[in-house]
């Protein structure tokens, strides 16, 4: 059927889609893997991101208004505690609030940054083409192109895009970096002005620095040559980042080991196919088919062991 054909081959006409290698990544595909079993939720990655990428600290009031600027946020999920079935115990349970506070109830943490989707929903809706896919698989955000329509923010299923509601570098209004503190700004990263969207860039300034060196020496970037700021700050080593097309890279090995395929939306963890070794790798909201580049390794709970 011809319409079925069109729909089946629709991916061929999307620039960003990696099916079948028809749109290669020129030797690079930057990807990330985050091991939730190791992550302690310490927020060091988030702080490192603030320091590296000139993020504005907006303060409590603006944060509560949803004007936060953290490119990497840690989402906290309390573990479910089984409620008692006995109604008498249930009233006592709700009255005491037992199992709802930290020492009694475990939590797990989900660091969420831009997932750099291969078929990114934000890219297709930008009216001016300020966000698009680079050849090495990064979802780019060009600040001076952006007109601030915020359509990408609406269309992002992960809600990882942040809008500059104020001119945070202006000393008259929002003095985020008062006089001595402006020395901490990273010169390799633009200080964004009012009215533009911003998001995680996989620390593109570090990537470009090593890619230039590699290009001069006529090779590809080697494994371990570049780290993102969050990866560098993670003392547990939960975050691994690298070129997925490099067979030596840790992140590529993890993706293969976990059976996570960037071009599929159902992974072997859910399908239970092949060998029966338990798999932990998954990507967030895969059923929406944005084909994200960040893989999470789920936490192994004591109850399941």
């Amino acid at each position: 059927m011809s319409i079925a054909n069109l729909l089946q081959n629709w991916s061929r006409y999307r620039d960003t889609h990696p099916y079948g290698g028809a749109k290669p990544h020129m030797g690079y595909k930057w990807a990330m893997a985050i091991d939730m079993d190791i992550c302690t939720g310490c927020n060091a990655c988030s702080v490192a991101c603030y320091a590296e990428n000139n993020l504005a600290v907006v303060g409590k009031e603006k944060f509560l208004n949803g004007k936060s600027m953290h490119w990497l946020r840690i989402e906290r999920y309390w573990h479910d505690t089984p409620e008692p079935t006995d109604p008498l115990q249930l009233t006592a349970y709700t009255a005491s609030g037992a199992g709802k506070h930290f020492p009694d109830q475990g939590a797990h943490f989900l660091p969420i940054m831009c997932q750099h989707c291969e078929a990114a929903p934000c890219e297709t809706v930008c009216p001016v083409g300020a966000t698009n896919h680079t050849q090495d698989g990064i979802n780019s955000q060009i600040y001076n192109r952006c007109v601030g329509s915020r359509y990408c923010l609406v269309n992002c299923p992960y809600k990882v895009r942040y809008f500059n509601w104020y001119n945070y570098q202006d000393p008259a209004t929002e003095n985020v970096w008062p006089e001595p503190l402006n020395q901490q700004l990273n010169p390799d990263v633009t200080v964004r002005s009012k009215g533009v969207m911003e998001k995680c860039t996989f620390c593109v300034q570090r990537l470009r620095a090593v890619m230039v060196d590699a290009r001069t020496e006529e090779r590809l970037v080697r494994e371990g040559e570049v780290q993102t700021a969050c990866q560098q700050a993670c003392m547990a080593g939960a975050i691994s980042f690298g070129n997925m097309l490099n067979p030596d890279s840790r992140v590529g090995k993890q993706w293969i080991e976990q059976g996570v395929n960037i071009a599929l939306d159902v992974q072997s963890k859910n399908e239970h196919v092949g060998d029966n070794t338990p798999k932990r790798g998954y990507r967030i909201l895969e059923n929406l088919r944005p084909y994200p580049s960040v893989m999470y390794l789920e936490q192994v709970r004591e109850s399941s062991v």
Partner: protein
Amino acid sequence: MHRIFLNSIVLLVGLFAATASFADSSTAHDGVAPSAGNAAAAAAVEKKGFIADYDNIFIVKGGPEAKPTTEIKPLEWNWVDKLFYNPMGWINSFTDQLGPEVEQPIEFPHDRHAGDPGKVNPDGKTGDGINCMYCHTFARRSLTAGIPPLRKCIGCHQNIPSVRDTPRIVKLFEYWDAGKPIPWKKVHDLPDYVRFNHERHIQRFVFKQERPYKEVCGYCHGDVASMTVARRQRTLSMGFCVNCHKKNHSLDSTYTKAGHGPNDCFMCHK
């Protein structure tokens, strides 16, 4: 009314069928898309996965080994286009496109240092033919070309007694004796959201392709060897960069790799 409505439906259905048949024929023609028969095989190919294709990644279309299939010509504007779509460019075409004249603390004679030894400068002296990268030494290994430190000037000029009493050298030694750097002013100042890399351009054109350094530096900086104080010669706008990046600068005729510069927003914008 109903008749028109029905007609439009018939028309729409006809259009639909036409497009569908066109899609069928086109997909069958290019031989990549599956017809109904081998849909399963194509699905298997698609399911083969992406990250396993290390071997094929370099030979598929568009990879680093590929030759450019079409030659991209730079935009050619006529005066009508310039007037309506690019009025500032049209106005600028009547000017010399030189940047603002920057007043430097010492009127540095580029022509005296870098000029051709056989050529007589307006001040009646010949140049020394010093390589640009003798003073702007970071150009071949860094993002910025770099302004030389004061000790680099003194390193030569303390051994040149013949010009020691000329006013500019006296001023130079005043800075040296005071122990202060010369507050040079920036002439080629790009916006903060642009990442321009001197290293790649110099490595590519001077060291790899062995073009003369004056020509290579002159792509963006003009003929500095004929100026005293450097002035901006090119617009250094995005169109200026992209026009050059679209051209094919193959290293030689046997070089198989596509030779154009990166055309990716994130390569230059930060």
